[in-house]
Protein backbone atom coordinates (compact mmCIF):
# COMPACT_ATOMS: atom_id res chain seq x y z
CA UNK A 1 0.00 0.00 0.00
CA UNK A 2 1.44 3.44 -0.87
CA UNK A 3 2.50 5.46 2.08
CA UNK A 4 0.34 8.62 1.64
CA UNK A 5 -2.77 6.50 1.33
CA UNK A 6 -1.96 4.68 4.52
CA UNK A 7 -1.32 7.98 6.22
CA UNK A 8 -4.63 9.48 5.22
CA UNK A 9 -6.44 6.32 6.23
CA UNK A 10 -4.86 6.39 9.63
CA UNK A 11 -5.66 10.02 10.22
CA UNK A 12 -9.23 9.37 9.16
CA UNK A 13 -9.57 6.58 11.68
CA UNK A 14 -8.02 8.74 14.36
CA UNK A 15 -10.38 11.56 13.57
CA UNK A 16 -13.39 9.30 13.82
CA UNK A 17 -12.17 7.87 17.05
CA UNK A 18 -11.72 11.21 18.75
CA UNK A 19 -15.14 12.28 17.60
CA UNK A 20 -16.72 9.19 19.11
CA UNK A 21 -14.77 9.68 22.29
CA UNK A 22 -15.96 13.26 22.55
CA UNK A 23 -19.52 12.21 22.07
CA UNK A 24 -19.21 9.57 24.74
CA UNK A 25 -17.62 12.02 27.15
CA UNK A 26 -20.27 14.64 26.70
CA UNK A 27 -23.05 12.13 27.12
CA UNK A 28 -21.45 10.87 30.26
CA UNK A 29 -21.01 14.40 31.57
CA UNK A 30 -24.65 15.17 31.04
CA UNK A 31 -25.76 12.04 32.76
CA UNK A 32 -23.44 12.68 35.60
CA UNK A 33 -24.77 16.17 36.09
CA UNK A 34 -28.32 14.94 35.93
CA UNK A 35 -27.59 12.29 38.48
CA UNK A 36 -25.83 14.74 40.73
CA UNK A 37 -28.61 17.25 40.72
CA UNK A 38 -31.00 14.41 41.21
CA UNK A 39 -29.32 13.02 44.25
CA UNK A 40 -28.19 16.27 45.80
CA UNK A 41 -31.36 18.28 45.89
CA UNK A 42 -33.12 15.20 47.15
CA UNK A 43 -36.63 16.47 46.64
CA UNK A 44 -39.07 14.16 45.00
CA UNK A 45 -40.61 15.98 42.09
CA UNK A 46 -44.03 14.68 41.12
CA UNK A 47 -43.75 15.62 37.48
CA UNK A 48 -40.88 13.23 37.00
CA UNK A 49 -39.31 13.07 33.62
CA UNK A 50 -39.69 9.88 31.71
CA UNK A 51 -36.47 8.25 32.68
CA UNK A 52 -35.41 9.84 35.91
CA UNK A 53 -35.03 7.75 39.00
CA UNK A 54 -35.77 8.57 42.60
CA UNK A 55 -32.90 10.13 44.57
CA UNK A 56 -30.23 7.58 45.44
CA UNK A 57 -27.97 7.65 48.45
CA UNK A 58 -25.45 5.09 49.43
CA UNK A 59 -22.77 4.37 51.93
CA UNK A 60 -20.18 1.64 51.67
CA UNK A 61 -18.65 -0.27 54.55
CA UNK A 62 -21.43 0.59 57.01
CA UNK A 63 -20.89 -2.42 59.23
CA UNK A 64 -17.69 -3.93 60.52
CA UNK A 65 -18.16 -7.69 60.53
CA UNK A 66 -18.73 -8.51 56.84
CA UNK A 67 -16.06 -8.31 54.17
CA UNK A 68 -18.14 -5.83 52.26
CA UNK A 69 -21.28 -3.94 53.13
CA UNK A 70 -23.44 -1.14 51.89
CA UNK A 71 -26.62 0.70 52.69
CA UNK A 72 -28.56 1.95 49.69
CA UNK A 73 -31.59 4.18 49.60
CA UNK A 74 -33.68 4.69 46.50
CA UNK A 75 -36.45 7.09 47.22
CA UNK A 76 -37.71 5.84 50.55
CA UNK A 77 -36.73 2.24 49.99
CA UNK A 78 -33.74 1.34 52.14
CA UNK A 79 -31.76 -1.90 51.96
CA UNK A 80 -28.64 -2.90 53.82
CA UNK A 81 -26.42 -5.49 52.21
CA UNK A 82 -23.39 -7.48 53.32
CA UNK A 83 -21.01 -9.89 51.63
CA UNK A 84 -18.96 -12.55 53.36
CA UNK A 85 -16.41 -14.49 51.45
CA UNK A 86 -14.81 -16.20 49.80
CA UNK A 87 -14.90 -18.32 52.93
CA UNK A 88 -15.10 -21.89 54.07
CA UNK A 89 -17.83 -23.97 52.46
CA UNK A 90 -20.06 -26.67 53.89
CA UNK A 91 -19.27 -30.08 52.46
CA UNK A 92 -22.71 -30.61 50.86
CA UNK A 93 -22.43 -27.36 48.99
CA UNK A 94 -18.86 -27.71 47.87
CA UNK A 95 -18.29 -27.10 44.19
CA UNK A 96 -14.88 -28.06 42.90
CA UNK A 97 -14.77 -25.63 40.01
CA UNK A 98 -16.42 -22.53 41.40
CA UNK A 99 -17.59 -20.72 44.48
CA UNK A 100 -20.99 -21.54 45.93
CA UNK A 101 -22.98 -18.34 45.98
CA UNK A 102 -25.71 -18.09 48.58
CA UNK A 103 -28.14 -15.27 49.15
CA UNK A 104 -30.20 -14.52 52.20
CA UNK A 105 -32.95 -11.96 52.05
CA UNK A 106 -34.40 -10.92 55.38
CA UNK A 107 -37.64 -9.04 55.63
CA UNK A 108 -37.74 -6.58 58.52
CA UNK A 109 -40.90 -8.03 60.02
CA UNK A 110 -42.00 -11.65 60.18
CA UNK A 111 -40.25 -14.79 59.06
CA UNK A 112 -38.98 -15.11 55.48
CA UNK A 113 -41.62 -16.70 53.22
CA UNK A 114 -41.62 -18.27 49.76
CA UNK A 115 -41.78 -14.97 47.92
CA UNK A 116 -38.59 -13.95 49.71
CA UNK A 117 -37.15 -17.25 48.49
CA UNK A 118 -38.02 -16.34 44.91
CA UNK A 119 -36.40 -12.97 45.44
CA UNK A 120 -33.30 -14.66 46.81
CA UNK A 121 -32.90 -16.84 43.73
CA UNK A 122 -33.16 -13.85 41.42
CA UNK A 123 -30.55 -11.92 43.38
CA UNK A 124 -28.28 -14.93 43.68
CA UNK A 125 -28.38 -15.79 40.00
CA UNK A 126 -27.78 -12.15 39.08
CA UNK A 127 -24.78 -11.90 41.41
CA UNK A 128 -23.45 -15.22 40.20
CA UNK A 129 -23.61 -14.06 36.60
CA UNK A 130 -21.67 -10.93 37.41
CA UNK A 131 -18.97 -12.33 39.65
CA UNK A 132 -16.18 -14.58 38.45
CA UNK A 133 -17.05 -17.49 40.69
CA UNK A 134 -14.51 -19.77 39.02
CA UNK A 135 -11.73 -17.74 40.63
CA UNK A 136 -12.75 -19.02 44.05
CA UNK A 137 -13.26 -22.76 43.83
CA UNK A 138 -14.26 -24.67 46.98
CA UNK A 139 -15.50 -21.59 48.80
CA UNK A 140 -18.75 -19.86 49.67
CA UNK A 141 -19.61 -16.29 48.90
CA UNK A 142 -22.67 -15.18 50.81
CA UNK A 143 -24.68 -12.12 49.96
CA UNK A 144 -27.03 -11.03 52.73
CA UNK A 145 -29.72 -8.43 52.30
CA UNK A 146 -31.79 -6.78 54.98
CA UNK A 147 -34.89 -4.83 54.13
CA UNK A 148 -35.01 -1.66 56.24
CA UNK A 149 -37.76 0.31 54.58
CA UNK A 150 -39.91 -0.58 51.63
CA UNK A 151 -41.69 1.99 49.54
CA UNK A 152 -41.59 0.37 46.13
CA UNK A 153 -38.88 -1.23 44.04
CA UNK A 154 -37.54 -3.40 46.84
CA UNK A 155 -36.19 -6.07 44.49
CA UNK A 156 -34.35 -3.54 42.33
CA UNK A 157 -32.94 -1.80 45.38
CA UNK A 158 -31.80 -5.15 46.81
CA UNK A 159 -30.04 -6.09 43.57
CA UNK A 160 -28.29 -2.74 43.46
CA UNK A 161 -27.32 -2.95 47.11
CA UNK A 162 -25.84 -6.41 46.53
CA UNK A 163 -23.77 -5.02 43.67
CA UNK A 164 -22.43 -2.26 45.91
CA UNK A 165 -21.60 -4.71 48.69
CA UNK A 166 -19.80 -6.97 46.22
CA UNK A 167 -17.87 -3.94 45.02
CA UNK A 168 -16.93 -3.11 48.59
CA UNK A 169 -15.88 -6.67 49.34
CA UNK A 170 -13.47 -6.84 46.42
CA UNK A 171 -14.83 -10.04 44.92
CA UNK A 172 -13.80 -10.16 41.25
CA UNK A 173 -16.60 -9.33 38.87
CA UNK A 174 -16.97 -9.40 35.12
CA UNK A 175 -19.16 -6.33 35.15
CA UNK A 176 -21.34 -4.33 37.50
CA UNK A 177 -25.07 -4.65 37.41
CA UNK A 178 -27.97 -2.35 38.12
CA UNK A 179 -31.66 -3.03 38.39
CA UNK A 180 -34.52 -0.69 37.62
CA UNK A 181 -38.23 -1.18 38.24
CA UNK A 182 -40.95 0.35 36.18
CA UNK A 183 -44.69 0.36 36.62
CA UNK A 184 -47.30 -0.09 33.90
CA UNK A 185 -50.43 2.02 34.30
CA UNK A 186 -53.91 1.00 33.19
CA UNK A 187 -53.45 2.74 29.83
CA UNK A 188 -50.08 1.02 29.25
CA UNK A 189 -47.90 4.00 30.12
CA UNK A 190 -44.54 3.34 31.75
CA UNK A 191 -43.52 4.96 35.03
CA UNK A 192 -39.84 4.42 35.74
CA UNK A 193 -38.86 3.74 39.36
CA UNK A 194 -42.26 4.40 40.92
CA UNK A 195 -42.74 4.75 44.66
CA UNK A 196 -45.21 2.68 46.66
CA UNK A 197 -48.17 4.99 46.10
CA UNK A 198 -47.71 5.08 42.35
CA UNK A 199 -47.05 1.36 42.23
CA UNK A 200 -50.44 0.73 43.80
CA UNK A 201 -52.15 2.38 40.83
CA UNK A 202 -50.18 0.27 38.36
CA UNK A 203 -51.57 -2.92 36.89
CA UNK A 204 -48.14 -4.43 36.40
CA UNK A 205 -44.55 -3.89 37.40
CA UNK A 206 -41.41 -4.95 35.57
CA UNK A 207 -37.96 -5.21 37.08
CA UNK A 208 -34.85 -5.56 34.95
CA UNK A 209 -31.20 -5.96 35.81
CA UNK A 210 -28.63 -4.80 33.28
CA UNK A 211 -24.89 -5.33 32.93
CA UNK A 212 -22.63 -2.31 32.82
CA UNK A 213 -20.87 -3.12 29.53
CA UNK A 214 -23.49 -3.70 26.85
CA UNK A 215 -26.52 -2.83 29.00
CA UNK A 216 -27.99 -6.21 28.16
CA UNK A 217 -30.62 -7.87 30.31
CA UNK A 218 -29.27 -10.14 33.04
CA UNK A 219 -32.48 -10.64 34.96
CA UNK A 220 -36.11 -9.92 34.45
CA UNK A 221 -38.93 -10.25 36.93
CA UNK A 222 -42.47 -9.21 36.27
CA UNK A 223 -45.78 -9.12 38.05
CA UNK A 224 -49.18 -8.40 36.63
CA UNK A 225 -50.45 -8.68 33.07
CA UNK A 226 -49.12 -6.60 30.19
CA UNK A 227 -48.87 -6.74 26.39
CA UNK A 228 -45.59 -7.55 24.64
CA UNK A 229 -45.12 -4.04 23.29
CA UNK A 230 -45.30 -2.59 26.80
CA UNK A 231 -42.72 -5.06 27.97
CA UNK A 232 -40.32 -3.87 25.29
CA UNK A 233 -41.05 -0.22 26.02
CA UNK A 234 -40.50 -0.78 29.71
CA UNK A 235 -37.25 -2.58 29.00
CA UNK A 236 -35.98 0.32 26.93
CA UNK A 237 -36.94 2.96 29.50
CA UNK A 238 -35.36 0.97 32.30
CA UNK A 239 -32.23 0.52 30.25
CA UNK A 240 -31.95 4.28 29.87
CA UNK A 241 -32.57 4.77 33.57
CA UNK A 242 -29.87 2.25 34.45
CA UNK A 243 -27.31 4.78 33.16
CA UNK A 244 -28.04 6.93 36.19
CA UNK A 245 -27.20 4.02 38.43
CA UNK A 246 -23.98 3.16 36.66
CA UNK A 247 -22.92 6.79 36.86
CA UNK A 248 -23.84 6.75 40.50
CA UNK A 249 -21.66 3.66 41.05
CA UNK A 250 -18.77 5.41 39.35
CA UNK A 251 -19.25 8.45 41.53
CA UNK A 252 -19.39 6.33 44.67
CA UNK A 253 -16.19 4.52 43.78
CA UNK A 254 -14.46 7.80 43.10
CA UNK A 255 -15.45 9.19 46.48
CA UNK A 256 -14.73 5.96 48.25
CA UNK A 257 -11.29 5.59 46.72
CA UNK A 258 -10.34 9.06 47.83
CA UNK A 259 -11.36 8.44 51.45
CA UNK A 260 -9.43 5.22 51.66
Amino acid sequence: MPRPLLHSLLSLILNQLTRVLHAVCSVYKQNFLAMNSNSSNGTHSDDKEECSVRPILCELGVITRPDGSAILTQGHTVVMSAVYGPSEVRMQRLQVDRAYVETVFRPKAGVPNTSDRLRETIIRDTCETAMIATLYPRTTISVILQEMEDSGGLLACSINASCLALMDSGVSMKFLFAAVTCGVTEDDLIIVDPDADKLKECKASLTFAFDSINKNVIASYTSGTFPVQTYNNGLEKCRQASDFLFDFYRDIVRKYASTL
Partner: protein
Amino acid sequence: MKEPIISNCEKAFLLEAISESRRLDGRGMFDYRDLSIRFGKDYGCCEVSMGQTRVLGQVSCEIQQPKATRPNEGLLHINVGLSPMGAPHFETGRQSISSIQLNRLLEKCIKDSKCIDLESLCIVAEEKVWCIRLDLNILNHEGNLIDCASVAALAALSHFRRPDVELTSEGLIIYEAAVKEPIPLGIKHTPICVSFAIFNKGKNIVVDPSELEERVAEAEFTLGVNGYKELCGVHLSGSTQSGPTIVRQCANKALKRAVSVVALIKETLAKDSELRGSNTERGFVECVRQGTITSHGTPKICLPIKHKLPVETMETNHEDESSCDEVEVIGSGTVELKNSSVLATDTAEQVMEVEEKPKVEEIALSDDEDEVQIL
Protein backbone atom coordinates in the same frame (compact mmCIF):
# COMPACT_ATOMS: atom_id res chain seq x y z
CA MET B 1 -19.12 -20.94 58.58
CA LYS B 2 -17.70 -21.79 61.94
CA GLU B 3 -17.05 -19.18 64.55
CA PRO B 4 -13.41 -18.11 64.39
CA ILE B 5 -11.32 -19.52 67.23
CA ILE B 6 -9.63 -17.19 69.70
CA SER B 7 -5.98 -18.05 70.05
CA ASN B 8 -4.48 -18.55 73.48
CA CYS B 9 -2.26 -15.59 72.80
CA GLU B 10 -5.21 -13.28 72.25
CA LYS B 11 -6.94 -14.62 75.32
CA ALA B 12 -3.88 -14.16 77.51
CA PHE B 13 -3.32 -10.67 76.15
CA LEU B 14 -6.86 -9.62 76.87
CA LEU B 15 -6.85 -11.11 80.36
CA GLU B 16 -3.57 -9.45 81.15
CA ALA B 17 -4.87 -6.11 79.99
CA ILE B 18 -8.12 -6.55 81.91
CA SER B 19 -6.24 -7.41 85.09
CA GLU B 20 -4.37 -4.13 84.62
CA SER B 21 -7.73 -2.40 84.25
CA ARG B 22 -7.25 -1.69 80.59
CA ARG B 23 -9.53 -2.57 77.73
CA LEU B 24 -8.44 -3.23 74.18
CA ASP B 25 -10.61 -0.54 72.67
CA GLY B 26 -9.30 2.05 75.06
CA ARG B 27 -12.41 2.32 77.19
CA GLY B 28 -12.33 2.41 80.97
CA MET B 29 -13.75 -0.58 82.82
CA PHE B 30 -17.09 1.18 83.30
CA ASP B 31 -17.31 3.10 80.07
CA TYR B 32 -20.17 2.32 77.74
CA ARG B 33 -19.91 2.59 74.01
CA ASP B 34 -21.88 5.29 72.23
CA LEU B 35 -25.53 4.48 72.04
CA SER B 36 -27.63 5.94 69.28
CA ILE B 37 -31.18 5.31 68.16
CA ARG B 38 -32.66 6.09 64.77
CA PHE B 39 -36.28 5.67 63.88
CA GLY B 40 -37.51 4.58 60.50
CA LYS B 41 -40.29 6.06 58.48
CA ASP B 42 -42.79 3.40 59.47
CA TYR B 43 -44.18 3.16 62.97
CA GLY B 44 -42.38 0.70 65.19
CA CYS B 45 -39.17 0.62 63.19
CA CYS B 46 -35.84 1.58 64.69
CA GLU B 47 -32.18 0.91 64.36
CA VAL B 48 -30.01 0.98 67.45
CA SER B 49 -26.27 1.00 67.48
CA MET B 50 -24.07 0.50 70.48
CA GLY B 51 -20.59 1.15 69.28
CA GLN B 52 -20.48 -0.98 66.17
CA THR B 53 -23.12 -3.45 67.35
CA ARG B 54 -26.29 -2.79 65.41
CA VAL B 55 -29.79 -4.11 65.75
CA LEU B 56 -32.84 -3.38 63.61
CA GLY B 57 -36.17 -3.61 65.39
CA GLN B 58 -39.59 -3.74 63.80
CA VAL B 59 -42.94 -4.17 65.49
CA SER B 60 -45.93 -5.38 63.50
CA CYS B 61 -49.43 -6.40 64.45
CA GLU B 62 -52.29 -8.56 63.27
CA ILE B 63 -55.64 -9.69 64.60
CA GLN B 64 -55.76 -13.21 66.03
CA GLN B 65 -57.72 -15.42 68.32
CA PRO B 66 -56.53 -15.17 71.93
CA LYS B 67 -55.26 -18.06 73.98
CA ALA B 68 -58.02 -20.01 75.70
CA THR B 69 -56.36 -19.48 79.08
CA ARG B 70 -56.20 -15.71 78.68
CA PRO B 71 -59.25 -14.79 76.61
CA ASN B 72 -59.09 -11.05 77.26
CA GLU B 73 -55.40 -10.43 76.62
CA GLY B 74 -53.51 -9.61 73.47
CA LEU B 75 -50.43 -11.54 72.44
CA LEU B 76 -46.81 -10.45 72.28
CA HIS B 77 -44.26 -12.40 70.30
CA ILE B 78 -40.59 -11.60 70.48
CA ASN B 79 -38.33 -12.97 67.81
CA VAL B 80 -34.62 -12.30 67.59
CA GLY B 81 -33.24 -13.18 64.19
CA LEU B 82 -29.56 -13.88 64.14
CA SER B 83 -29.18 -12.89 60.52
CA PRO B 84 -25.93 -14.05 58.93
CA MET B 85 -25.33 -10.39 58.25
CA GLY B 86 -24.39 -9.90 61.88
CA ALA B 87 -21.62 -12.46 62.00
CA PRO B 88 -20.60 -15.23 59.60
CA HIS B 89 -21.34 -18.03 62.06
CA PHE B 90 -24.99 -17.07 62.44
CA GLU B 91 -27.13 -19.27 60.27
CA THR B 92 -30.60 -18.81 58.95
CA GLY B 93 -33.36 -21.27 59.55
CA ARG B 94 -32.03 -23.06 62.55
CA GLN B 95 -32.42 -21.67 66.04
CA SER B 96 -29.04 -21.65 67.66
CA ILE B 97 -28.43 -21.76 71.38
CA SER B 98 -27.43 -18.13 71.43
CA SER B 99 -30.58 -17.03 69.65
CA ILE B 100 -32.76 -19.01 72.05
CA GLN B 101 -30.91 -17.47 74.96
CA LEU B 102 -31.33 -13.97 73.57
CA ASN B 103 -35.00 -14.59 72.92
CA ARG B 104 -35.63 -15.92 76.38
CA LEU B 105 -33.75 -13.12 78.10
CA LEU B 106 -35.76 -10.51 76.22
CA GLU B 107 -38.98 -12.35 76.96
CA LYS B 108 -38.10 -12.39 80.63
CA CYS B 109 -37.22 -8.73 80.60
CA ILE B 110 -40.13 -7.43 78.52
CA LYS B 111 -42.93 -9.98 78.37
CA ASP B 112 -42.69 -11.55 81.81
CA SER B 113 -42.19 -8.21 83.51
CA LYS B 114 -45.59 -7.20 82.06
CA CYS B 115 -44.23 -4.06 80.52
CA ILE B 116 -46.85 -4.03 77.74
CA ASP B 117 -50.47 -3.59 78.69
CA LEU B 118 -51.86 -6.68 76.98
CA GLU B 119 -55.41 -6.23 78.16
CA SER B 120 -55.77 -3.04 76.15
CA LEU B 121 -55.06 -5.11 73.03
CA CYS B 122 -58.25 -7.08 73.35
CA ILE B 123 -60.95 -6.32 70.79
CA VAL B 124 -63.53 -9.04 71.43
CA ALA B 125 -62.83 -11.35 74.35
CA GLU B 126 -62.22 -14.96 73.30
CA GLU B 127 -62.46 -14.00 69.64
CA LYS B 128 -60.27 -11.21 68.42
CA VAL B 129 -57.20 -9.66 69.98
CA TRP B 130 -54.19 -7.85 68.60
CA CYS B 131 -51.08 -9.96 68.26
CA ILE B 132 -48.01 -7.79 68.52
CA ARG B 133 -44.90 -9.19 66.93
CA LEU B 134 -41.49 -7.78 67.65
CA ASP B 135 -38.76 -8.74 65.20
CA LEU B 136 -35.17 -7.92 65.98
CA ASN B 137 -32.59 -8.41 63.28
CA ILE B 138 -28.93 -8.37 64.23
CA LEU B 139 -27.11 -6.33 61.61
CA ASN B 140 -23.65 -6.36 63.10
CA HIS B 141 -22.37 -8.33 66.05
CA GLU B 142 -19.59 -6.59 67.93
CA GLY B 143 -20.51 -7.78 71.38
CA ASN B 144 -23.24 -7.16 73.92
CA LEU B 145 -26.10 -8.07 71.62
CA ILE B 146 -28.52 -8.36 74.50
CA ASP B 147 -28.20 -4.77 75.66
CA CYS B 148 -28.45 -3.44 72.16
CA ALA B 149 -31.39 -5.70 71.34
CA SER B 150 -33.24 -4.73 74.51
CA VAL B 151 -32.87 -1.03 73.74
CA ALA B 152 -34.06 -1.67 70.18
CA ALA B 153 -37.00 -3.66 71.55
CA LEU B 154 -38.07 -0.95 73.95
CA ALA B 155 -37.58 1.82 71.40
CA ALA B 156 -39.52 -0.05 68.71
CA LEU B 157 -42.36 -0.90 71.09
CA SER B 158 -42.67 2.65 72.34
CA HIS B 159 -42.54 3.98 68.79
CA PHE B 160 -45.13 1.56 67.44
CA ARG B 161 -48.74 2.48 66.80
CA ARG B 162 -51.48 0.05 65.92
CA PRO B 163 -54.42 0.97 63.71
CA ASP B 164 -57.63 2.00 65.43
CA VAL B 165 -60.50 -0.47 65.22
CA GLU B 166 -64.19 -0.17 65.73
CA LEU B 167 -66.67 -2.93 66.35
CA THR B 168 -69.92 -2.37 64.50
CA SER B 169 -72.91 -4.55 63.88
CA GLU B 170 -71.56 -5.35 60.40
CA GLY B 171 -68.23 -6.46 61.69
CA LEU B 172 -64.84 -5.09 62.50
CA ILE B 173 -63.63 -1.92 60.82
CA ILE B 174 -59.89 -1.39 60.75
CA TYR B 175 -59.08 2.26 60.15
CA GLU B 176 -56.09 3.20 58.05
CA ALA B 177 -53.60 5.64 59.49
CA ALA B 178 -54.85 8.40 57.20
CA VAL B 179 -58.43 8.04 58.44
CA LYS B 180 -57.97 7.71 62.18
CA GLU B 181 -54.87 8.42 64.19
CA PRO B 182 -53.23 5.10 65.14
CA ILE B 183 -52.89 4.22 68.81
CA PRO B 184 -49.60 3.65 70.68
CA LEU B 185 -49.12 0.61 72.90
CA GLY B 186 -49.68 0.94 76.61
CA ILE B 187 -46.23 0.73 78.17
CA LYS B 188 -46.24 0.39 81.93
CA HIS B 189 -42.53 0.57 82.55
CA THR B 190 -39.36 0.71 80.53
CA PRO B 191 -37.12 -2.31 80.97
CA ILE B 192 -33.73 -2.64 79.34
CA CYS B 193 -30.87 -5.07 79.85
CA VAL B 194 -27.44 -4.14 81.12
CA SER B 195 -24.64 -6.69 80.81
CA PHE B 196 -21.37 -7.12 82.62
CA ALA B 197 -18.50 -9.40 81.76
CA ILE B 198 -16.78 -10.95 84.74
CA PHE B 199 -13.09 -11.87 84.71
CA ASN B 200 -10.64 -13.37 87.16
CA LYS B 201 -13.15 -14.79 89.65
CA GLY B 202 -15.02 -11.56 89.98
CA LYS B 203 -11.98 -9.39 90.51
CA ASN B 204 -12.49 -7.54 87.26
CA ILE B 205 -15.82 -6.49 85.89
CA VAL B 206 -16.39 -4.60 82.68
CA VAL B 207 -19.59 -3.07 81.39
CA ASP B 208 -20.85 -3.30 77.82
CA PRO B 209 -18.38 -6.03 76.80
CA SER B 210 -17.09 -6.24 73.25
CA GLU B 211 -17.33 -9.47 71.31
CA LEU B 212 -13.85 -10.59 72.27
CA GLU B 213 -14.39 -9.74 75.92
CA GLU B 214 -17.65 -11.67 75.91
CA ARG B 215 -15.97 -14.74 74.59
CA VAL B 216 -12.99 -14.61 76.91
CA ALA B 217 -14.92 -13.70 80.06
CA GLU B 218 -15.66 -16.47 82.53
CA ALA B 219 -19.20 -15.28 83.04
CA GLU B 220 -21.62 -12.72 81.74
CA PHE B 221 -24.06 -11.13 84.10
CA THR B 222 -27.17 -9.55 82.63
CA LEU B 223 -29.62 -7.49 84.61
CA GLY B 224 -33.02 -6.34 83.45
CA VAL B 225 -33.66 -2.90 84.88
CA ASN B 226 -36.31 -0.29 84.25
CA GLY B 227 -36.37 3.46 84.33
CA TYR B 228 -37.88 3.43 87.83
CA LYS B 229 -34.79 1.73 89.23
CA GLU B 230 -36.49 -1.64 89.56
CA LEU B 231 -34.97 -4.98 88.71
CA CYS B 232 -36.93 -7.14 86.29
CA GLY B 233 -34.63 -9.96 85.34
CA VAL B 234 -31.32 -11.37 86.44
CA HIS B 235 -29.30 -13.80 84.41
CA LEU B 236 -25.83 -15.23 84.80
CA SER B 237 -24.35 -17.17 81.94
CA GLY B 238 -21.09 -18.99 82.51
CA SER B 239 -19.77 -19.55 85.98
CA THR B 240 -17.70 -17.52 88.33
CA GLN B 241 -16.69 -17.99 91.92
CA SER B 242 -17.35 -14.62 93.39
CA GLY B 243 -19.20 -13.24 96.34
CA PRO B 244 -22.61 -11.61 96.39
CA THR B 245 -21.05 -8.17 96.49
CA ILE B 246 -20.66 -8.05 92.73
CA VAL B 247 -24.39 -8.54 92.30
CA ARG B 248 -25.06 -5.43 94.30
CA GLN B 249 -22.20 -3.59 92.65
CA CYS B 250 -23.50 -4.46 89.18
CA ALA B 251 -27.09 -3.71 90.09
CA ASN B 252 -26.18 -0.22 91.22
CA LYS B 253 -24.34 0.43 87.98
CA ALA B 254 -27.18 -1.01 85.95
CA LEU B 255 -29.78 1.17 87.64
CA LYS B 256 -27.83 4.30 86.82
CA ARG B 257 -27.37 3.15 83.27
CA ALA B 258 -31.05 2.37 82.83
CA VAL B 259 -32.04 5.87 83.86
CA SER B 260 -29.77 7.47 81.27
CA VAL B 261 -30.71 5.02 78.49
CA VAL B 262 -34.42 5.46 79.09
CA ALA B 263 -33.92 9.22 79.06
CA LEU B 264 -32.15 8.91 75.70
CA ILE B 265 -34.94 6.78 74.24
CA LYS B 266 -37.55 9.29 75.40
CA GLU B 267 -35.57 12.18 74.02
CA THR B 268 -35.16 10.52 70.62
CA LEU B 269 -38.83 9.59 70.57
CA ALA B 270 -39.80 13.16 71.32
CA LYS B 271 -37.56 14.41 68.50
CA ASP B 272 -39.08 11.90 66.13
CA SER B 273 -42.65 12.84 66.95
CA GLU B 274 -41.70 16.49 66.53
CA LEU B 275 -40.37 15.69 63.06
CA ARG B 276 -43.50 13.72 62.28
CA GLY B 277 -45.64 16.59 63.47
CA SER B 278 -43.85 19.11 61.28
CA ASN B 279 -43.89 16.60 58.42
CA THR B 280 -40.19 16.96 57.68
CA GLU B 281 -38.19 14.26 55.98
CA ARG B 282 -37.31 11.51 58.39
CA GLY B 283 -36.45 7.85 58.39
CA PHE B 284 -33.34 6.00 57.39
CA VAL B 285 -33.00 7.92 54.13
CA GLU B 286 -32.49 11.10 56.11
CA CYS B 287 -30.02 9.27 58.36
CA VAL B 288 -27.94 8.24 55.38
CA ARG B 289 -28.08 11.73 53.97
CA GLN B 290 -26.94 13.30 57.21
CA GLY B 291 -24.36 10.61 57.71
CA THR B 292 -25.71 9.57 61.11
CA ILE B 293 -25.98 5.96 60.05
CA THR B 294 -22.41 5.81 58.82
CA SER B 295 -19.50 4.02 60.25
CA HIS B 296 -16.89 5.73 58.15
CA GLY B 297 -17.22 8.76 60.32
CA THR B 298 -16.13 6.81 63.37
CA PRO B 299 -12.51 5.72 63.47
CA LYS B 300 -12.22 2.17 62.29
CA ILE B 301 -8.76 1.69 63.68
CA CYS B 302 -8.60 2.51 67.30
CA LEU B 303 -5.30 1.24 68.50
CA PRO B 304 -5.54 -0.06 72.02
CA ILE B 305 -4.12 1.83 74.97
CA LYS B 306 -3.52 4.76 72.69
CA HIS B 307 -5.17 7.33 74.88
CA LYS B 308 -2.79 6.60 77.73
CA LEU B 309 0.15 7.79 75.69
CA PRO B 310 1.71 11.24 75.73
CA VAL B 311 0.74 13.58 72.96
CA GLU B 312 3.88 13.19 70.85
CA THR B 313 3.54 9.48 70.62
CA MET B 314 -0.06 9.90 69.65
CA GLU B 315 1.11 11.73 66.60
CA THR B 316 3.50 9.00 65.56
CA ASN B 317 0.67 6.65 66.09
CA HIS B 318 -1.46 8.58 63.67
CA GLU B 319 1.21 8.32 61.07
CA ASP B 320 1.24 4.64 61.63
CA GLU B 321 -2.42 4.55 60.95
CA SER B 322 -1.93 5.36 57.33
CA SER B 323 1.00 3.05 56.92
CA CYS B 324 -0.63 0.12 58.62
CA ASP B 325 -3.55 -0.20 56.32
CA GLU B 326 -3.16 -3.94 56.49
CA VAL B 327 -4.43 -3.82 60.00
CA GLU B 328 -7.62 -2.24 58.86
CA VAL B 329 -8.03 -4.62 56.01
CA ILE B 330 -7.73 -7.67 58.19
CA GLY B 331 -10.12 -6.49 60.81
CA SER B 332 -11.30 -3.24 62.19
CA GLY B 333 -11.19 -1.61 65.55
CA THR B 334 -10.99 -4.11 68.29
CA VAL B 335 -11.87 -6.84 65.93
CA GLU B 336 -8.50 -6.98 64.38
CA LEU B 337 -7.29 -9.59 66.81
CA LYS B 338 -10.02 -12.10 66.34
CA ASN B 339 -11.60 -11.47 63.00
CA SER B 340 -8.94 -13.35 61.13
CA SER B 341 -9.07 -16.91 62.19
CA VAL B 342 -6.39 -18.08 59.82
CA LEU B 343 -4.06 -15.22 60.37
CA ALA B 344 -4.71 -14.95 64.07
CA THR B 345 -1.12 -15.10 65.14
CA ASP B 346 0.12 -12.99 62.27
CA THR B 347 -2.36 -10.28 63.01
CA ALA B 348 -1.51 -10.29 66.63
CA GLU B 349 2.08 -9.75 65.71
CA GLN B 350 1.30 -6.91 63.39
CA VAL B 351 -0.82 -5.19 65.92
CA MET B 352 1.87 -5.64 68.51
CA GLU B 353 4.42 -4.09 66.27
CA VAL B 354 2.26 -1.13 65.61
CA GLU B 355 1.67 -0.62 69.27
CA GLU B 356 5.07 -1.40 70.51
CA LYS B 357 6.88 1.28 68.62
CA PRO B 358 5.47 4.19 70.53
CA LYS B 359 4.86 2.62 73.87
CA VAL B 360 7.82 0.54 74.80
CA GLU B 361 8.75 2.97 77.50
CA GLU B 362 5.13 3.51 78.50
CA ILE B 363 4.05 0.04 79.32
CA ALA B 364 6.40 -2.77 79.95
CA LEU B 365 5.14 -5.30 77.51
CA SER B 366 8.29 -7.31 77.39
CA ASP B 367 6.53 -10.42 78.56
CA ASP B 368 4.00 -10.26 75.81
CA GLU B 369 6.73 -9.59 73.35
CA ASP B 370 8.38 -12.84 74.33
CA GLU B 371 5.14 -14.64 73.98
CA VAL B 372 4.61 -13.36 70.51
CA GLN B 373 8.01 -14.46 69.45
CA ILE B 374 7.55 -17.90 70.88
CA LEU B 375 4.32 -18.28 69.00
